[in-house]
């Protein structure tokens, strides 16, 4: 399976993402720069963390206009798995691929630490290797992770099982402790915590690995049928 790792000017978790896929997962990965226009040769798209365009104005605001984002939208529409982590999540929100918006953390401080997440939904292409309700340890590192959406959007997310991960306590002010959400068709996941930083027990946790494995497993399954 071939993953695209999107690199915006100011992305800084691109290498971490790349190593997670390549070294720990053993799949193919390639960097794709912000000014490229096609993602046709890839099976999945990863938007890494960092500070695209310095996160000036609003996190992810300027990156939404990068040429590559048209290709990301196309890949999403084609049903390919698209995962946005941290800044990648913020870009997906700004680009309208996911509902809602991010505000400054409630405490106004950047927060870097391992947190416990609850897997709210394991019937997704990103979480099938987790148990429903499984508690996992994955680090966060963000200043703007305070998720907001309208009550109506929240109801829709909730009713359709699109809230995938939640924090176990009020980490940053996010509505309903939301840590990660899916789009309507279930192939775009945005999450603030960094699964790519949790792929090796040497660094504290390997709880992020099943997320990547889920993507691969689901892809293998569907592609076996089609062949």
């Amino acid at each position, binding site marked *: 399976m071939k993953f695209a790792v999107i690199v915006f*000017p*100011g992305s*800084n*978790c691109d*290498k*971490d993402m790349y*190593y*997670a896929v390549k070294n720990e997962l053993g799949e193919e990965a390639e960097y794709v720069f912000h000014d490229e226009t096609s993602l046709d040769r890839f099976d999945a798209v990863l938007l890494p*963390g*960092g*500070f695209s*365009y*310095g*996160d*000036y104005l609003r996190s992810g605001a300027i990156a939404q206009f990068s040429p590559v984002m048209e290709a990301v939208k196309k890949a999403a529409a084609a049903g390919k798995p698209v995962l946005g982590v941290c800044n990648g999540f913020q870009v997906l929100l700004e680009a309208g691929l996911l509902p809602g918006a991010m505000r400054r953390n409630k405490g106004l*401080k*950047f*927060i*870097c*630490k391992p947190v416990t997440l609850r897997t709210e939904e394991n019937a997704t292409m990103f979480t099938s290797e987790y148990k429903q309700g499984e508690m996992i340890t994955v*680090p966060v*590192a963000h*200043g703007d992770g305070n998720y907001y959406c309208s009550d109506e959007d929240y109801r829709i997310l909730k009713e359709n099982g699109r809230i995938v991960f939640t924090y176990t306590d009020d980490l940053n002010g996010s509505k309903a402790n939301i840590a990660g959400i899916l789009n309507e068709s279930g192939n775009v996941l945005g999450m603030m915590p*960094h699964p*790519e*930083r949790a792929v*090796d027990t*040497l*660094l*504290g946790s390997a709880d992020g690995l099943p997320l990547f494995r889920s993507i691969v497993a689901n892809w293998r399954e569907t592609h076996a049928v089609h062949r």
Partner: protein
Amino acid sequence: MPYIDEITPKTIETDKLYLDMGVTEDEFSRIQTILNRLPNYTELGLFSVMWSEHCSYKHSKAVLKKFPVEGDRVLQGPGEGAGVIDIGDNQAAVFKMESHNHPSAIEPYEGAATGVGGILRDIFSMGARPVALLNSLRFGELTNPRVKYLFEGVVSGIAGYGNCVGVPTVGGEVQFDDCYEGNPLVNAMCVGLIDHSDLQQGIAKGTGNPVLYVGAGTGRDGIHGATFASEELSEQSESKRPSVQVGDPFTEKLLIEACLEAVRHPQLVGIQDMGAAGLTSSSAEMASKAGSGIHLNLDDVPQREEKMTPYEMMLSESQERMLLVIEQGSEKEFTDLFERWGLQAKVIGEVTDNQRMTLSFQGDTVADVPVDSLAEDAPVYHPDSVEPERFRAFQAAGQPNLTAEDPEEILLTLLQQPTIASKEWVYEQYDYMVQTNTVVQPGSDAAVLRMRGTDKALAMTTDANSRFLYLDPYTGGQMAVAEAARNLVCSGAEPLGVTDCLNYGSPENPEIYWELERSTDGLSEACRALNTPVVGGNVSLYNETAKGAVYPTPVVGMVGLIDKLDHITTQTVKNAGDAVYSLGKAGNDFAGSELQKVTEGRIYGPAPTFDLAAETERQTKVLTAIRKQTVQSAHDISEGGFAPALAEKLFSSGLGVDVTLTQSESLTASLFSETPSRYIITVREEDRERFEKLVPEAEMIGRVTETPQCMIRGNDGTPLINRSVQELENVWRGAIPCYLKSED
């Protein structure tokens, strides 16, 4: 708008305008001798910044000469942007520390942020990829509202910059003492990794080679002309002029990536960052090192403000700028490379063969001075040195006799002292994990980073307990180096080398100069004994306010190598049932201790007796025991003494401890004295015999327990301290947030 040349050389001389630029009478006549004429305004500006303390080290050169700078592993000692130490397999560690004290005192966020930006550029201008940042901070007491503001601003500035560029901030230290109230210390350290073949130097050679300016435009920021100069220069009021720079970490991130690509280009000749004294120091130093000259055409300098004068362009300290010298004919390749990263690159001059710096502007030559006179010929001063009265008094006073009536209360109090309390509030704001190499995260004795693709790791720390330096600069200086090394050893690393940042008051005060001399003697000796050469550093003098100077604070940044990932050790206890060992006897060393500060409100007396030979021997033994895999956890005993150190070992472990003090002379000393060169180590039952053979001096004092209780007994078995780990941990973790929330 009047131009500078309206201030004639004659006016400068008759009105003694040079004094306002910090150039003394003597220095001014020296400049005249060098030039064989009077300098014009721009030229005087060049001399004033290059001969400033910050660039020329004119008051500290003499003491810096004492540092051991050589060693088997040293690839680059002091003199370049950063020091370089061989770590095997054709790789090297590149590191350096620098101060940003004064800007941080005025604008804590931007001051600290640009300090991080500057130290990063020192590292990647050597061709190395920055892999870690550390910071050593000193503030006044946290009860003061202004101090809180500075502390919060500095920490978020470090976070804001480091997090954005994607270099993990993995460690450091923060201490609080009255003497830093108006003059906080903000020292930033960066560590980079490089393959030997990629090492670069800041050098401008090859007559005719173009000089390339890269990065942000030049503005009027950081020109320290709150002097007559700027007033005469423009009608604008001085208050419109920013005296602190604002950083742009996004541009820095692009610079890092672009420069690391540029250094692999075969036609790059030299590269240097524009740090202090911006364009002046980078161009003069690059030419001087190569024995060349340099010509710059200032009309071509990218500017972000209008009508800038040569003086302003040469002295500006705008951030995120680099200077490159490249081979003729490669201009387009380099400008294209930088443009791909969204950065401007412009040829602004060329290397010449006349060993002069010549500047042209609007068709005129506006400066023509020998390059070496700027970079090499600054005067060197040997200020008077006088032993302060206080030192004699401290020596005569003898160790104070302190008794802790209620050891539990004392322990709780000590754990809440901001200097001892958890620094989680600080490092949770830093992205310490980005790049996914941080094996030992902040919170242990040293930070440890794995090196991808090898079985090795790097350990790093910063240390200096300035209270001991205040009591006795010589002994305190030795102790600072020893503590840094001890912290690395506890992590399983062999200490390799040092970068330092020497923070003192005014060297023109003989007592301060004495502190500088004595403490650097101490540092040098310890570096020799521990075989950790000094490969780079920085001097920050004049750290004083009306209330007085800061304590002598030579911060030691040290990097060590861990051979095998298996050797990585942390301070936290690991398994119930493990034996607890204490290594090193506690003496009655209370002068300068946290206990003395808490109980008497001030520190006085002689520094602890410190035996460098014993220290070295013990470090070797502990490291050997770790490398032979007989050690589960190791922690050195520092601020607060044994009891706080033992408590720290339990936090987050879910375990407890039951130990019995064997020493009979003074319980207070056993619990709280700060005798150096001591450790607490835990060992599995099955490894005890091997461990004891390797470290015969270590004494078993108890066991790690399943119950999370901290039990410390006197030698007759009666409990002296018996508290739940949770309670201790709560006060320790809550202390700093609590100070920051409280209203007074």
